[in-house]
């Protein structure tokens, strides 16, 4: 595959989806992404997705595997002076930092933008946080669906006349879209840094990204206080009839009509979902089954480039678009904890055996979690 970001190196502190997926998209485009974790602080996806408690559980989470393919993985303790020193040295060899810690965490470790830009003035530093780096709520905590609520998306989601709804913990929608937006902006900033020789601090608020997707609703509300702000079911302004309908086989299908048809309920109820969708499509009507995850795995044509197998046979996330008609190539599976620590410290910083052993013995580097011990 074409590698538009070949030669770009990323120091990746990204966790869960919002951070780790932003840098994963850069890795897919050819960047050398160095994911930094530590034995004392794993990407939480290693923990929430662990399939069992057997030795090596921290390397077996599907969620982690989905979101960290094509990266190299280092374990360097952010609280250890030797770990901090290695990270500062690595920053000199990188174009970009991606992080989504709570505000202040990297500053306290001496690894914030102010410190790293002294080492590398061309560095682009992407800080992705719940509320942004400024303002009275900058230290607020949030988790996925908190932002469905506070961004406005939940207020327009729900059954007609009922309470608002969130996307929920199995979607955490705001986390997904922030990585799409941040990846694009970060690429623009790296281009600009290479041209000008000067880096930048990029301050992303996840809540703002989610509200941005309601731009027309906010604009309409600013001019008209009576503009509807209630859950809208499956309807849409300007569409005469649109909803989910239950078919004879018990499955739901989504249908959008350009002219109303009061008989659509019974049309669907008297047919299997496959027949109903096919009949509607043949009449030029937009219709689709309400798929679940099992359906998505089974429908290879529909999956397009969104799911790929890594070298170990594990299913991972692809790219949301194609380049020259192709999806992403998985060149390496998601890294085990600390898998590439020694390799990268030798290659980029020239560390030798003695130094690497010293780091391991002091606990600055590791390949096993120390959760509960620190």
């Amino acid at each position, binding site marked *: 595959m074409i590698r538009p970001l070949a030669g770009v190196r990323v120091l990746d502190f990204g966790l869960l989806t919002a951070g780790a997926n932003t840098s994963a998209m850069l890795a897919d485009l050819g960047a050398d992404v160095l994911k930094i974790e530590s034995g004392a602080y794993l990407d939480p996806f290693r923990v929430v997705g662990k399939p069992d408690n057997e030795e090596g559980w921290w390397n077996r989470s599907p969620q982690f595997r989905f979101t960290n393919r094509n990266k190299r993985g280092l374990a360097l303790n952010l609280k250890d002076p030797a770990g901090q020193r290695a990270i500062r040295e690595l920053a000199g060899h990188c174009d970009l930092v991606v992080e989504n810690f709570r505000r202040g965490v990297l500053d306290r470790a001496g690894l914030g933008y102010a410190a790293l830009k002294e080492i590398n003035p061309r560095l682009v530093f992407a800080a992705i946080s719940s509320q942004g780096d400024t303002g009275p709520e900058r230290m607020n905590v949030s988790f996925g669906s908190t932002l469905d609520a506070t961004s406005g998306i939940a207020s327009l989601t729900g059954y007609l006349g009922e309470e608002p709804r969130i996307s929920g913990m199995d979607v955490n929608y705001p986390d997904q879209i922030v990585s799409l937006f941040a990846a694009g902006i970060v690429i623009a900033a790296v281009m600009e840094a290479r041209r000008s020789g000067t880096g930048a601090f990029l301050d992303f608020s996840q809540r703002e990204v989610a509200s941005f997707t309601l731009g027309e609703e906010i604009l309409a509300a600013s001019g008209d206080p009576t503009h509807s702000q209630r859950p809208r079911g499956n309807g849409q302004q300007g569409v005469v009839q649109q909803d989910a309908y239950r078919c004879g086989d018990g499955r739901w299908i989504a249908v959008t009509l350009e002219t109303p048809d009061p008989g659509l309920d019974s049309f669907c109820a008297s047919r299997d979902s496959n027949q109903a969708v096919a009949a509607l499509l043949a009449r030029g009507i*937009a219709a689709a089954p309400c798929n679940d995850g099992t359906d998505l795995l089974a429908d290879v044509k529909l999956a397009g480039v969104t799911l790929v197998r890594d070298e170990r046979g594990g299913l991972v996330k692809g790219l949301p678009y194609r380049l*020259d008609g192709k999806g992403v190539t998985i060149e390496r599976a998601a890294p085990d904890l600390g898998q590439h620590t020694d390799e990268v410290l030798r290659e980029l910083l020239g560390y030798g055996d003695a130094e690497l052993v010293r780091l391991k013995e002091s606990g600055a580097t590791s390949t096993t979690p120390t959760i509960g011990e620190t």
Partner: protein
Amino acid sequence: MGPALTEATPCADHRAMTEAAPLPLARFTIVELNDAGVPLCLRLATSLAAKVAADLGADVLKIEPPGGDPVRRAPPLLPQGGSALFQFLNTSKRSLVLDLRTDAGRASLGRLLDRADVCLFEEPASVAALVRAGKATPIEIAAFPLEMDAATRPVSELAIQALGGLMHMVGEPACKPLKLGGHQASYAAGLAAFSGLAAALAARDAGQRAPHVRVSLAEVMQWVNWKAASGAAATGTSPGREGKASEFQIVPCRDGHVAVVYTVTQWPATRALIGDKRLDDVKFNTRAGRRQHIAELYAILRPWFANKRRAEIQRAAQAKGVPFGPIFSPAELLGAEQYVARSFLAEMTHPTLGRLVMPQLPVQWNGRSFAPRPAPEMARAELAA
């Protein structure tokens, strides 16, 4: 008054200095090709991707069919006339009406493409072959993956949220599946297209041949909803909408609703916040236990919210590190303290529509925001033709 003046001066200088710096994409020219007869849900994706580039300084030329982009007439409408949807999606662009059914129209397009870096267009486009053969890198927005019967299958945003599995995740298990509010199927694809556009520009900038980019709404929706496939592959059972059986639920409070959200590690803080002794029961100690007794758990939680306001709930929860989410409507966000402090909502004066307030790009770049300029007017677009 003296101190106010001295404070104002450095501010003004600072603004002048930062605004003098060129916008990051100012070097690039982008054609947004709006062919006639394209499904609106594709147009929204195209226009969003081009809007982000335009607000970042790219010279975006929007080519509209005779009669204009139908989004000019799409709801929600502004009380003073015009479409809020169009005004939001087309900031900072220039516009030109071209009839691509005529030789002259296609010849004009060809000349514009020769000068552009990128051309965004939608499938099915009558001029797709012309665009793909041009010097500008093509970025194609489609409804479905190439492997499906992509160009002829009818599409709607609801159908995309259904196909991509998102609707299966929202609502009550015994009731119909629900879509998310807003134009999420189109806008997620628009953001993906912008990131593909940035990658194409980076390749051109590095002297490489830029790849052709193709974005489909159906692929983006599945990509966004990846936990459905990942969960189904890991356990053999798909995650799905849990409604009143979910750990995260919406509860009413005195002035609206709040989303109850907490992670496993935040449960002790959540229990302390609510302060009801019944929550100390061992059956609530583990996540599995809480899920098993979810109705009972919420029966204990709900009264705590009932007589409190959202602001009070958020303050108390944040003080304990608990991420409860008060639910705000778009109108309420206009006054949100955090958004006001960060000047997230930009105010602009449109030549005919007057004062408009809308979100800016959700990023600050060295502290700088990207103030959008008003969307182009139809009369000028026709005149330019």
